[in-house]
């Protein structure tokens, strides 16, 4: 029997026929990268290939790397295989990677969500034989409400606090979630201040032509009273630090899919938890998998063993793959 099109090694997902890895976690010669989050785009590879839209953030984060870019849908021959990148809807530039070899097609999802967020190119179902999927929120308790409802919740929280003269500090991942929120904020309520890590990513995205509302970078000289009614967009790890305390008795919020769980919400000790994720919910995962038409499914990260059993029940040939991807983490700042 011939080698499978993709194999799973201790360096990462490997394509023997094309001699490249996808999102490897140890240094390799040739790395195809789905998106710029730290658990997928790691330093130390000899050559990188990613979408043109993901490239600026990767360069910003990984420095002077040998990076080649492709557009969504553009086909590339690598060794004996054809690869192409397709929108994953996770963050701007994020891609699913399609690999074709003698009529057999595999797709590696990276991280994805199916609901359009108004910022990233929307998720595109790609027909394939085998689908390598994440399942960060692969449990039927995770069901996202439409983005507009969550946005309204955030804005009414902001407006209520602004009316009482209190600042709002909203924790969100610097790459992706922060810009998605920026786009959803009602700027008539007040000014938007940003933490340095968020503003750096904003600058990279603005430079590549993504329109974002005006923001004011918080510096040591920033006086909160000069910005009444402000919403401060910060990284989750900045909440509760001396950096955040300069804003006085502010109301704190945190935007993450994990906020769906009361226990997690309470443990974060933020005043408000907003359920917003850049990963697919239960329905999203199931519909995405269905639409690929794939019969073989590999679950890479999240509730993999439970999700595999569910897929097997549904008649798929499903397996769990051990990877170093972390999905939407509460502890680590960057892996989202």
């Amino acid at each position, binding site marked *: 029997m011939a080698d499978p099109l993709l194999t799973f090694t201790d360096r990462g997902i490997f394509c023997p026929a094309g001699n490249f890895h996808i999102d490897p976690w140890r240094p390799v010669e040739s790395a195809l990268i789905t998106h710029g989050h730290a658990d997928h785009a790691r330093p130390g590879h000899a050559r990188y290939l990613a979408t043109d839209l993901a490239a600026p953030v990767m360069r910003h984060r990984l420095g002077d790397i040998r990076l080649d870019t492709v557009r969504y849908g553009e086909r590339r021959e690598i060794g004996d295989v054809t690869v192409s990148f397709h929108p994953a809807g996770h963050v701007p530039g994020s891609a699913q990677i399609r690999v074709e070899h003698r009529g057999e097609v595999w797709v590696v999802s990276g991280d994805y969500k199916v609901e359009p967020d108004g910022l990233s190119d929307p998720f595109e179902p790609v027909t394939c034989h085998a689908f390598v999927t994440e399942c960060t929120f692969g*449990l039927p*308790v995770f069901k996202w409400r439409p983005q507009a409802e969550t946005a309204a919740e955030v804005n009414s929280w902001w407006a209520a606090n602004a009316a009482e003269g209190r600042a709002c500090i909203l924790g969100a991942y610097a790459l992706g979630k922060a810009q998605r929120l920026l786009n959803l904020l009602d700027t008539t309520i007040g000014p938007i201040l940003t933490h340095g890590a968020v503003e750096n990513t904003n600058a990279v995205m603005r430079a590549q032509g993504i329109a974002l509302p005006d923001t004011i970078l918080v510096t040591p000289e920033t006086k909160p009273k000069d910005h009444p009614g402000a919403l401060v967009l910060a990284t989750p790890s900045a909440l509760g630090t001396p950096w955040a305390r300069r804003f006085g008795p502010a109301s704190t919020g945190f935007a993450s899919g994990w906020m769906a769980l*009361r226990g997690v919400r309470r443990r974060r000790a933020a*005043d408000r938890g907003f359920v917003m994720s850049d990963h697919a919910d239960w329905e999203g995962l199931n519909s995405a998998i269905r639409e690929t038409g794939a019969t073989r499914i590999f679950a890479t990260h999240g*509730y993999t063993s*439970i999700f595999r059993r569910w897929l097997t029940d549904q008649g798929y040939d499903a397996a769990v793959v051990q990877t170093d991807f972390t999905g939407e983490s509460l502890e680590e700042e960057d892996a989202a």
Partner: protein
Amino acid sequence: MNRFAALFTALDQTTKTNTKVAALADYLSEAPEADRLWTIALLSGRRPKRTVTTTLLRAWAAERAGIPLWLFEEAYPIVGDLAETIALILPPPASRTDLGLSHWIGVIRGLAALDEPARKAAVLAAWDQLETTQRFVFNKLITGGFRMGVSQKLMTRALSRATGIAEPDLAHRLMGDWSPESTSFRNLVLEHDPTADLSKPYPFYLAYQLDDGPAALGDPQDWAAEWKWDGIRGQLIVRDGQFHLWSRGEELISDRFPEFARAADHLPDGTVLDGELLAWADETPMPFNALQKRLGRKTVPKKLLAEAPVILRAYDLLERDGRDIRQTPYAERRDRLETLVGDLPPDAPVRLSPRLPFGDWDELTTLRQTSRDRQAEGLMLKRKDSAYRDGRKRGDWWKWKVDPLTIDAVMIYAQQGHGRRANLFTDFTFAVRDGNQLVPFTKAYSGLTDAEFNKITAWVRRNTLERYGPVRHVKPEHVFEIAFEGIQESPRHKSGVALRFPRMSRWRHDKPVSEANTLDDLKEILKAYG
């Protein structure tokens, strides 16, 4: 239930005491009186009787959600709360209603009279009219164990703000054997008649821990000392020829302790004693687990009654001749207590907790070192001129416990917590060394900071050797100092010992597994303190 669900959300969304009290005070001023009464009941630990088993609820929820039961059962420990799991897993409601809290509690109580198909239909119909938070509240009401992050103390403060009635007065009104079925908001709170309920206890006065020694308390002559007994707090009431016994958790436990009928024979009507319940043999306290056996039973077989007889070690007198004397200074209450209890015959199960004479703090400090020899946990210090207050108030009563016993142990199993601690590994099993073996001897759940729990959780995920259901066998690598208050022989445990109040007092990053304590060390402690 919109209004109650909104209250729940408001309380849940803040950690700030003032915001909670304000939200609750608003609710207690505005909601319908029946809903107010149920809210007070829920926040003082009273709940409707359980009318559906959780097994049925799980099966119905999984069926309604269109998922197999195993998938529900996998999701439950991850969410960490059954009521929440059900609320999240169900499809959105088909319709909305705005029926109040007491309506839904009525529905839940009504389930008792229905057969199973009708119960199921009623529960499914309720689920289909309530949005997620309301559903969660509804499920919590069915399953019990409802916590809203508001202590009875805060609830009393909010109620005081809503009604204008003073807090201590309200605290007393809300004590005792009432339920929303047996009274009304008006009768319980607004137009309270203290003689209406003969079993009504007084709020317990609770002591703070004295961390820094007694020197800061001032003149030793202003203070009285006694042993701190290792039993459970109890309030014994004799009124109208009947006795009533209350635990600190405000549970009426008279039926479990029939021996106190003898006390009612010897004590005059209108007497209320505060003290410690202890299993008692040969005029000395028995180990705590003897008392525990008694607490675990609703009715007491004769054999157990003979094996583990219980007494009240009385230390305060709250009511005499039917008069509330809580405002009388402690020293005077003690004198009256000693007169009342000092002459009781030995078959009356009440013993005076003796006052400990001492000249200065040094003398008392020395005395404290002998606590364990006296089967005591340490000392209690009470200001002689103090009134008997309600709840935990700083200043007049202090508990001064002896330092805990400790042992350095190896973590070998880990399990996730529930509720606030879901998704975190917080429940651990610890072992001592025995040659090349590790012998498990205790579990512990508390003592680490949130940051430490996060850290150990991340470690457990990466260092699991085997899984047994929810339990993970982890690499024996981390040593923790386990602190505990007592140790006893226990044939039920592999190690042969059982600890009292074990907790993690320190993460010994400095100690390798090879330096953890041994089974022999543990047996030495058992010999010395068991």
